[in-house]
């Protein structure tokens, strides 16, 4: 599944993250020691944000886990392979929004989909939705930035992502045609 092949690399990255965290905490402690008059405001602010995260983070993690088990990657490829028109666009959006892992596994999937004959516009929509409209993440966006901000940003993003998919497809078709013509003459 998600961690195929590079669990070792994941472990190494994780260790790096924990070391960075330790360094940051030490630097923070030193800074607060040097500027004691700032300590109370810094600690209060950090605590408030931490509380807000702790309230939702475990639940979001569980949702991510449930998604990845109940909706496997293979299903995404299966449905994306042969879909076009409005149905293809909606499917690319919805499948991209499912939290099936980080962006770096979306690229190989997209490449496989291109080989399978999926439309380029749908691939672009799929990748973009994958990158910026992940469902569990949006729950956290609502928590921190409010429902109005989140929905407006998502709505606009969806519209622009669809436009972008279509523009890129047309541009690539156009330049490919030109290349073929140039090659002939």
């Amino acid at each position: 599944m998600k961690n195929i092949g590079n669990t070792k690399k994941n472990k190494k990255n994780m260790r790096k993250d924990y070391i960075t965290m330790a360094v940051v905490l030490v630097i923070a402690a030193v800074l607060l020691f040097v500027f004691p008059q700032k300590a109370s405001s810094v600690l209060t602010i950090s605590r408030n944000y931490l509380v807000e995260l702790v309230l939702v983070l475990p639940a979001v993690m569980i949702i991510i886990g449930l998604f990845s088990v109940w909706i496997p990657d293979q299903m995404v490829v299966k449905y994306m392979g042969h879909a076009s028109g409005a149905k293809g666009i909606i499917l690319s959006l919805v499948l991209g929004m499912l939290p099936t892992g980080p962006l770096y596994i979306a690229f190989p999937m997209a490449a496989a989909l291109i080989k399978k004959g999926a439309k380029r516009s749908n691939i672009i929509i799929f990748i973009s939705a994958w990158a910026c409209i992940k469902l569990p993440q949006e729950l956290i966006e609502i928590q921190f930035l409010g429902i109005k901000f989140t929905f407006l940003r998502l709505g606009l993003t969806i519209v622009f992502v669809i436009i972008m998919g279509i523009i890129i497809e047309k541009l690539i078709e156009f330049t490919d045609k030109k290349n073929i013509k140039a090659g002939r003459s």
Partner: protein
Amino acid sequence: MKSIVSNYLTAIIINAISLGWLIFSVVKSKEKTKKSLKIAFKTFIKIIPLVVIIIVFIGFLLGFIPSNFISNIIGDKAGFWGIMVTAVLGSVLFIPALISFPLAASLLDGGASVMSVAAFITTLTMVGIVTLPLELRELGKKTTILRNVLSFIFAVAIAILMGVIL
């Protein structure tokens, strides 16, 4: 900022969704539930250091940097250039979206404009300088460059529209 009630409301709804689905999952298949929780736990362990770092960073950002400094650079007065600053930052930085939202909220609290914050989040997720080599390899030069350039332009457009509407 939002009121305390609406804050808790979101948290309650999120927890209710996860609990409801969890119960459904347990009833349907114990094995799949176990696997899900394992993935959840792994993801959690992986994200803890990033969460701690960003929380500390937010504390210092708002505690040390005066808010008129933030609002001068990326506030309402900064206008278009404020958006460009955060849009470029969002393109270059590699912060998981999950923890970028608290950071974005802290920038808003610190005096940043809605436009700047929207541009930041949108380029952060849509434009990937760090993942560029992989994207080039898998999708080819033309698609990759077009996608990232258009994403940047559209992110700025989304930000401006949001500023106009909100």
